[in-house]
């Protein structure tokens, strides 16, 4: 099962490589990793999607916590949460396919960001599985390029991750 680990980390140069280095050194999976500043300029927030047995996930969270730059973390997949990923897909849009792709984008609540006589760029936000489904539906042969942000997430309700 995938786990989504949200991390508050000191906004220091090198902090990101401490995290990514830990994963490669210990042979853990990283499915995706996103990082950006928070309202507090001294902190960054990272969302890391990983997978492994319960034992491995336990080690991953312990090892992350051990990094001096890591201030706090939580495995949000253990609680009710919302997760989102943003994707931009450049598709072929010619002749008959053009209408069909537009219709699919609407069904998936996508936005068309760019239109040329032969292509669309479609933006879709949602859980990873929704984005996967969209790609599947559009079909490999119609896809020129895909850019995905990686998953980010947030806990539902009052609880949050803060210092």
């Amino acid at each position, binding site marked *: 099962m995938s786990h989504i680990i949200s991390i508050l*980390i*000191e906004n220091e*140069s*090198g902090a990101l*490589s*401490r995290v990514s*280095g830990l994963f490669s*050194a210990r042979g853990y999976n990283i499915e995706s990793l996103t990082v950006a500043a928070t309202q507090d300029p001294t902190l960054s927030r990272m969302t890391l999607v990983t997978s492994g047995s319960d*034992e491995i996930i*336990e*080690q991953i969270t*312990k*090892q992350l*916590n*051990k990094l*001096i*730059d*890591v*201030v*706090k973390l939580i495995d949000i997949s253990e609680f009710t949460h919302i997760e989102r990923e943003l994707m931009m897909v450049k598709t072929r849009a010619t002749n008959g396919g053009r209408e069909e792709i537009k219709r699919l984008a609407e069904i998936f609540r996508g936005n068309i960001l760019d239109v040329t006589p032969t292509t669309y760029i479609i933006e879709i936000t949602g859980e990873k599985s929704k984005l996967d489904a969209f790609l599947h539906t559009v079909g490999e042969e119609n896809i020129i390029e895909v850019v995905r942000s990686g998953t980010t997430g947030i806990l539902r309700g009052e609880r949050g991750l803060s*210092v």
Partner: protein
Amino acid sequence: MELSGGEILVQCLIDEGVEYIFGYPGGAVLHIYDALFKQDKVKHILVRHEQGATHAADGYARSSGKPGVVLVTSGPGATNAVTGIATAHMDSIPMVILSGQVPMAVIGSDAFQEADIVGITRPCVKHNFLVKDVTKLAATIKQAFYLATTGRPGPVLVDVPKNLTDPRVKVPYEYPSSVSLRSYNPHVKGHRWQIKKAVDLLLAAKRPMFYTGGGIVLGEASAELTELTRLLGYPITNTLMGLGAYPGTDKQFVGMLGMHGTYEANMAMHECDVLFAAGARFDDRITGIIAEFCPYAKVIHIDVDPSSISKNVRVDIPIVGEVKLVLAEMLELIKASDKQPDAEALAEWWKQIDTWRGLDSLGFDRNADVIKPQYVVEQLWEMTHGDAYVTSDVGQHQMWAAQFYKFDKPRRWINSGGLGTMGFGLPAAIGTKLAFPDADVFCITGEASIQMCIQELATARQYRTGIKIVNLNNGYMGMVRQWQEFSYGSRYSQTYLETLPDFVKLAESYGHVGIRIDKRSDVRAALEEAYRQKDRTVFLDFHTDPTENVYPMIEAGKAHHDMRLAPGVNIDTELA
């Protein structure tokens, strides 16, 4: 007070109470060396290779409990230090390494002697810093010492670009009196409820076993451990890193466990019903194959680092905390409890353990003409009344030192366990001798290992550190040769050292005393001779049996109760 960056670094060390700094100069640290020159509080020990600096600082730290401090230049100076930093990291040794870096303006331009040492050392330090602002220098040094010495200790590197130490740029200096880091709170006290559960389980045990390690030494918890073990009357084993934390000559001590542990220690591990682990990390050298490790035991584990717990072996009662505090709390609870250990079960258990002990798994031929390496260590132990500081390198000699020198006190046994770094022993002995100038310091080494940092003989001469080198010279990389004998049909691929130096002349050329010993009957006299020469470094070159192996041995892929014993030791007949 206004100081330059170079002066700030030195003043920080003085304010930290640093006695010695082990280092080697170069371009990027010239300003710092100039600041060192102008004072006499911190003594600089000039080594002959930066690896030697880190091992010497490490030996100083392991023996004294104080952090070791290192100063190296950028580029090759810093990369030479990496092996020693990784060695300290694997064994959780407190160390602060100051490395020079090229000026900030040229970082990233492949400048002369530039190396990304922060990147290179990231996986083998507890933490590291690249300082970019001279006004942050003092606070960073304070943090470095704080991180290195608290929680699970470890090496911390501070990389200092040359322009920050410029003597012309002076800034106000104040050494912070305290540190607090929002992202770092080493747990200290154990959870009361968990401790209570552990005590209940321990008191209910029928076949209890204590397994303790380097954490007892690092956490200064020897007294508490000894009291607890004696109070309960339970058997105890130590890891290679824990030797001396419980008196090695005590009857409750069943010897080291693991790959080259005693038969009784490993069997007791296998058969116990409650395993009490404290400050030990279930290394693969002690577990054998995990699936068959301690099959009947409920496991209690105390460690200050949560990531050590349930890493390799599932733990039933985890306790995160400083072992000294947790053990003290356990003692208190046990003394207040109306429960007692099950005396009858314990007597039965000891009877079983004594039967295993009867096998004498460390036995060797004491009457052989050729020098048995075990004999040398045993004689050394007798002669020094078990009270010397002993450093070691890596190989068979290290295991014999661990098996035959029975350490009764912590911090006397100084060796590289986790990384297993050949070359550690000699510089570590120098560091130890500097920490304890009046103590007897012996380095038990092998002819291959000693050559990896042999240049430090010059350092020993310069600072008149009268250490004694016990070279168990078997002409082979014995430990590797042993594996080749057992697992590769005695094909000794590249493990014979064809061109050995004449160690006697070598020692003499550095200004030391060298003695070669070929016969068993000369062993004791040579040791005594070295012992008498208190202020000289003496190199004892013992030519030992080249075919001797370390027993018992748990071979790769075997369980911890499945040991290979010395030829001639027969479990079925001797334990019948």
